[in-house]
């Protein structure tokens, strides 16, 4: 083999995960920050988000650092990785929900259709009108099904026939047939899976173009989970979806792109910071990951 190939092979061979933090730091410095993706601008594959050096600090402790990657439009992007590596923190950056936590500070930029979401001139309330969110534990309001879905349009002042808006949103969440006769009943009377689909309908009602889902199925049974996964695949044609999930198989089933997160100790071995190790099409992540840490995770060698 020529030297060049040997070099390439050596470069490809992943470093074994080390416990000496200084080596990690050195390696990070050597290989650059978390995968810097700069796809050539491709009109056939526009990005809805372009994250640039996003870091989140809780009281000066970094929870995630230097996240830089694009999220593509009308695709499902999955964020996977073990617990505590910043996936939820990151997804909450995309709709400025971290603003609600006084101790949190966000640095970096999130470019959304040409605007930086964290520009001081941008109103976070406006951001959330365009980027919807579904939470891990279904959190319907203690109101009727109708009022739950109508709440968003009402508060943002959407014009139009409310009945139509509500019906469209509930249909979009594949829930209409089950609730059309009981729209005025209390939302708490529904099952967990139905409540979560109601929360999805609620998010759809404000006509966002992105839906963020933070472990939407982790509190649900397998049948409800399957229905919501089917729903996600349907929604993909209209909305861009980012999903955080603990369930690797779920990511493999539904997502187009997958980002694998891990957690690293800092220099003093005191703080844990989340990092993106690898970001690639889902097939590649699961069949031929480039980084050993990814491979260990997706094959179940580490939790």
């Amino acid at each position, binding site marked *: 083999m020529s030297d060049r190939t040997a070099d390439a092979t050596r470069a490809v061979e992943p470093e074994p995960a080390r416990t000496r933090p200084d080596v990690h730091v050195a390696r990070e410095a050597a290989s*650059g920050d978390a*995968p810097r993706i700069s*796809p050539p601008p491709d009109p*056939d*594959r526009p990005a809805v988000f372009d994250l640039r050096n996003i870091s989140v600090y809780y009281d000066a402790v970094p929870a995630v650092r230097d996240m830089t990657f694009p999220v593509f439009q009308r695709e499902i992007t999955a964020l996977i990785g073990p617990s505590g590596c910043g996936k939820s923190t990151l997804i909450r950056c995309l709709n400025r929900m971290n603003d609600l936590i006084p101790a949190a500070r966000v640095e970096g930029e999130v470019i959304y259709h*040409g605007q930086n979401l964290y520009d001081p001139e941008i109103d976070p309330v*406006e951001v959330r009108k365009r980027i919807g969110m579904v939470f891990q534990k279904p959190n319907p309001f203690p109101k009727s099904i109708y009022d739950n879905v109508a709440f968003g349009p009402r508060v943002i002042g959407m014009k139009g026939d409310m009945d139509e808006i509500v019906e469209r949103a509930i249909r979009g969440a594949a829930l209409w047939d089950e609730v059309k006769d009981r729209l005025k009943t209390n939302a708490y009377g529904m099952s967990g899976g139905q409540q979560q689909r109601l929360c999805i309908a609620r998010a759809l009602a404000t006509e966002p173009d992105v839906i963020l889902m933070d472990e939407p199925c982790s509190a649900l049974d397998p049948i409800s989970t399957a229905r919501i996964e089917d729903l996600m695949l349907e929604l993909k044609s209209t909305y861009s979806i980012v999903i955080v999930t603990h369930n690797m198989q779920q990511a493999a089933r539904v997502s187009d792109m997958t980002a694998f997160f891990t957690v690293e100790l800092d220099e003093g071995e005191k703080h844990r910071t989340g990092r993106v190790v690898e970001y*690639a099409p889902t097939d*590649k992540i699961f069949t031929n990951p480039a980084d050993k840490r990814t491979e260990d995770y997706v094959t179940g060698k580490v939790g």
Partner: protein
Amino acid sequence: MPAAGPDRELMQATDASALSQPAVRPLGRARPRWGERAIQGLLFLCAAVSVVTTVCIVVALVEPTISFFGEVPIGDFLFGTEWAPLFSPPSFGVLPLITATLTTTFVALCVCIPAGLGAAIYLSEYAHPRARKVLKPVLEILAGIPTVVYGFFALTFLTPLLQDVWPGFLGDPPQIFNMLAAGLVMGVMILPTVASLSEDALTAVPQALREGAYGMGASKMQVATRIVVPAALSGIVASFVLGISRAVGETMIVLVAAGGTPNLSFIPTEPGQTMTAFIAAAGIGDQPTGSVGYKTLFAVGSTLFVATLLMNVLSIRLVRKYREVYE
């Protein structure tokens, strides 16, 4: 090589819908939401009312008190044994008011501390949940009865009763106005306060502590008295301190049942005028603003306020202490 961008061959052209996508509206600029800010300001003012109240109380008390001590030497006030501010010549010794306050408070504590703690221990450690549902409302009702009603009860029911059953060896029977009846009824009135706060403290003790003791073969009484009560001690003491504060600050019961004659004595069967009763009486007397009689009201009021303030702060700190430990 480190994970790079998506492989070109895997990049799929999105379907035609991408081309029919409508132009994206830019996000709105952050505009100062004046309505929200106004509301926040209004709500802050509401919260500030409480601060203004305290400031006003202090101002209302301090100014006449200082003026009072300009005319009456503080030594005379604190150590004098005659309280006759409206006589000529007036005497301003506050000790009779203090002895009456102490006597009635002491009698009340003799009732409310053991009974309040006992009720709390029973409710927390012994009572069946169904029994609790009946017993707790009884305590709530006791707490809700107006104090003037308690005063009436002490004067018209308890005093005659005490007079009837009074054993000879205890000396003279209680007079029509006496501090004993007032103190006893006050004790029952304060019982729910002590019981409820102590019960909170007792139920905050983790079940694991009890189970550890039961597991060693301790009896219910031993668990209650040697494990749970000591663990809840700061909360229990807080309830006692609050009880004392309420006893010291109570007006109507003593006004009705203990009489209006200042009496430098600790004998409960005699009448007495507490600090609070004096303030009420002075208020009824409608003293002209700025007169010495008017100012005595504030001087005694300051004494009362300072005493209860110290006890309240102590009680709050004790509660915080046990909350920190268990919550």
